[in-house]
């Protein structure tokens, strides 16, 4: 049988997939518990006097940022390499990801980086902007989950060995 991927890149790609899977789980948990709350402008105004809620927002932002970096900087480039492509820059990686339909829009993926900054700095000065950023980040999380699911489907279609199988093949 002919392999449809470069086996020398399989381990790195699978490691990135496993880490991304864990980070998806962490972000899904925080997204679920955070947005189970009734979040509106009043809620945002109370953040300063409710450190436990502010901490939850921080966890969400941090997990969102980690998953986005893991997908954009590790998972997509390593799967591109696995498939014989070697995009040089972040923008090349995103163009390839768009072509592979791992993401709908490179513009939306890269634009979502701006949310992290908005969610760290704005709640003291501009309540509405912070609220909008939080709700936009909720949607952007779904974009990340969908990118992960698409790459996971690519992995399945390539019939990659599992990590345990890969380890057992090592001398």
């Amino acid at each position: 049988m002919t392999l449809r991927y470069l086996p020398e890149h399989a381990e790195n790609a699978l490691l990135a997939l496993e880490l991304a899977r864990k980070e998806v789980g962490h972000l899904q948990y925080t997204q679920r518990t955070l947005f189970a709350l009734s979040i509106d402008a009043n809620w945002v105004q109370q953040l300063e006097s409710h450190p436990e809620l502010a901490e939850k927002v921080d966890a969400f932002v941090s997990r969102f940022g980690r998953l986005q970096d893991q997908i954009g900087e590790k998972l997509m480039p390593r799967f591109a390499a696995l498939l014989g492509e070697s995009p040089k820059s972040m923008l090349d990686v995103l163009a390839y990801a768009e072509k592979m339909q791992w993401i709908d829009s490179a513009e939306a993926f890269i634009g979502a980086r701006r949310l992290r900054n908005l969610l760290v700095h704005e709640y003291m000065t501009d309540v509405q902007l912070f609220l909008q950023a939080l709700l936009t980040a909720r949607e952007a999380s779904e974009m990340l989950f969908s990118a992960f699911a698409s790459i996971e489907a690519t992995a399945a279609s390539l019939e990659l060995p599992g990590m345990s199988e890969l380890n057992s093949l090592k001398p």
Partner: protein
Amino acid sequence: MRLTSNQVQAIRHVAQRVLGADARVRVFGSMALDQHKGGDIDLFFETDAALANRAQILCQLSGAITLALGDRKIDIILKDANTPLAPIFDIAKRTGILL
């Protein structure tokens, strides 16, 4: 001002596509100064309209400008009809160059 005419065209195009024909965009900070070298690209987008979701528009502008100018340090601020006053907007307006 140290943006090339191609960069200016690309920025104007993004402003019009995302915010409409009456949007204004200024470059400010070090990129507005001829004698400086390197540095971030600071852009101030302004519209008289009231946007439903400024955060989402900021992301869209940021993504579109990054795709147009390359993945370098780009800082974007946005003011619509509902944006609270802040010193940064006055500075950007006073020192910036309209593109």
